């Protein structure tokens, strides 16, 4: 690589391609049972991708694979050009939640700050005494403003609404300037208007910060206008493409193995009709019960 003389490029580990996530022939198993197999995915850097599919189809499993918490049983995966787990420090992760009850006596801003340096040992010096403390405080402030939580961040997190909590949790995942965000069902507990608002926020961050975002969701409609791509898991397989390519009768029929229709309402909402209850779902319930 020839770097221009005026602006020497630091020898950082550059991924081979502009791919943020790639999976080739990937199979993931949990408890010996295959969740999905033969999955090929390619997500470009800076894209906003939704992970969709019925319960138990392996949406969160994909997140665990990308975090390096669950090794693939077949195939290979790279995350930010490296094996899963190696890029952990560059990933902001928001687990499936997890909301804070009213008894949680910690402020939203403290939670964001923990996302910045909570893993470090030792006691933080007061901001008045240390430059790093002041820098950390500025970064926390900046991130809180970015997610539009400036008015509620200084109150106990338990006293905030679901939407406010979710904004602060996204700030917590963002505060270390990650190159990728893995958000596992961040919209789950929100009402429709808040789902749209948070999705708009995530898209704005995606563009302004150049972050790749993978968002696991139940319902595609509130976030449809903001998405670049969609990954859809069903029937032990997964497909990837633009929302219109994937959420489409023939594609979903192929995934589910039964005829599925996709209807479009006059306001642009997509309704998937005819999906069967996945048999794998019942199996997993039983396994958990015993």
């Amino acid at each position: 690589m020839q770097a221009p003389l005026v602006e020497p490029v630091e020898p950082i580990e550059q991924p081979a391609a502009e791919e943020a996530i790639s999976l080739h022939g990937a199979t993931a198993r949990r408890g010996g049972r295959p969740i999905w197999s033969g999955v090929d995915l390619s997500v470009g850097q800076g894209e906003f991708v939704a992970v969709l599919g019925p319960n138990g189809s392996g949406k969160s499993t994909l997140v665990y694979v990308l975090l390096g918490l669950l090794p693939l049983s077949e195939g290979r995966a790279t995350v930010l050009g490296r094996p899963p787990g190696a890029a952990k420090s560059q990933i902001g992760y928001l687990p499936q939640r997890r909301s804070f009850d009213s008894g949680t006596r910690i402020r939203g801003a403290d939670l964001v700050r923990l996302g910045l340096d909570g893993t470090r040992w030792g006691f933080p010096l007061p901001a008045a005494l240390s430059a790093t403390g002041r820098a950390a405080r500025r970064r926390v402030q900046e991130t809180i403003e970015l997610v539009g939580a400036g008015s509620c961040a200084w109150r106990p997190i338990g006293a905030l609404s679901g939407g406010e909590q979710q904004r602060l949790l996204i700030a917590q995942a963002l505060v270390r300037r990650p190159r990728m965000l893995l958000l596992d069902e961040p919209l789950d507990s929100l009402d429709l208007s808040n789902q749209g608002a948070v999705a708009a926020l995530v898209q704005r961050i995606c563009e302004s910060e150049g972050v790749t975002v993978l968002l696991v969701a139940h319902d595609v409609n509130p976030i449809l206008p903001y998405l670049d791509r969609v990954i859809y898991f069903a029937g032990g397989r997964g497909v990837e493409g633009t929302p219109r390519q994937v959420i489409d009768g023939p594609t979903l029929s192929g995934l589910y193995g039964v005829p599925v229709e996709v209807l479009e309402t006059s306001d642009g909402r997509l309704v998937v009709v005819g999906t069967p209850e996945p048999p794998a779902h019942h199996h997993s319930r039983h396994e958990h019960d015993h």
Partner: protein
Amino acid sequence: MSTTTELAGLSWHPVSDFEALTEFPFMVQALQAGTIVAVMAGTIGWFMVLRRQVFAGHTLSVIAFPGAAGATLAGLPLALGYFGACGVGALVLSRVSRSEESGLSSESAAIGTVGAFGLGLGFLFVSLYGGQLTSLESLLFGTFLGITAAQVQTLLWIGLAALAILALIGRPLLFASVDGAVARAAGVPAEALALAFLLLLGLAVAATAEITGALLVFALLVTPAATAQQVTARPGPGLALSVALALAVTWLGLGIAYFSPYPVGFWVTSLSFGLYLVVRLLLIALARLHHSQPLGAPA
């Protein structure tokens, strides 16, 4: 100490009263030990309340009782019994509460079972020792005024070590306590920290139990921390307030007990309970005031 008149010897003159309070070495040692214990209980208790491990703390204090009774029976130093039992208890509790999937209810049931067995064991030791009620009473309700200079020394080292460890692990522990899943994903060794904290809690309980007895540990370990968390959700000021309240309660309790016929344990628990009550009522009143203002204001 006089039992005929209340607050005998109190002149209501601060300087001479302070001189009277520190006239005897046993009182000075009680104040020193109380100070060390209050700082430990205030900080570690703050984390315990935040982590919602109050029940684990209670069980450790119950386990401290058979430890002390067993040590008395075997002719070993009392401190060894307290610290040994609480250390073993912390390890047992960490095994019991390790599997998060089993759910909170089964965890608390298992902890309760361990606690009840501990109490029974302690009762057995006391009756084997000869059923001397005075020793039973001091094991359960403390021996504030029987602290030796050597005990103060030991307490000081234990307190400093506990605070140093807490200062080292404090930040990741806070992270794991309020936001376990994210902390684990970020690489915080949450399980190891949980064990370390239970051991620290064991230290704090043992140190406090030596002074306040097994049953009154909570006056210093829970109440100041719970009060502080009612007042502020900020970690730094919350910790400071928790320590300040524990110190105030200890010093006032010791001071009042010196001039009154009633035991230290009673005063310390009553003061901390009163403080908690006053703060709660004040906060409720403040919240009412806050809520009624926008209603009363013209739209």
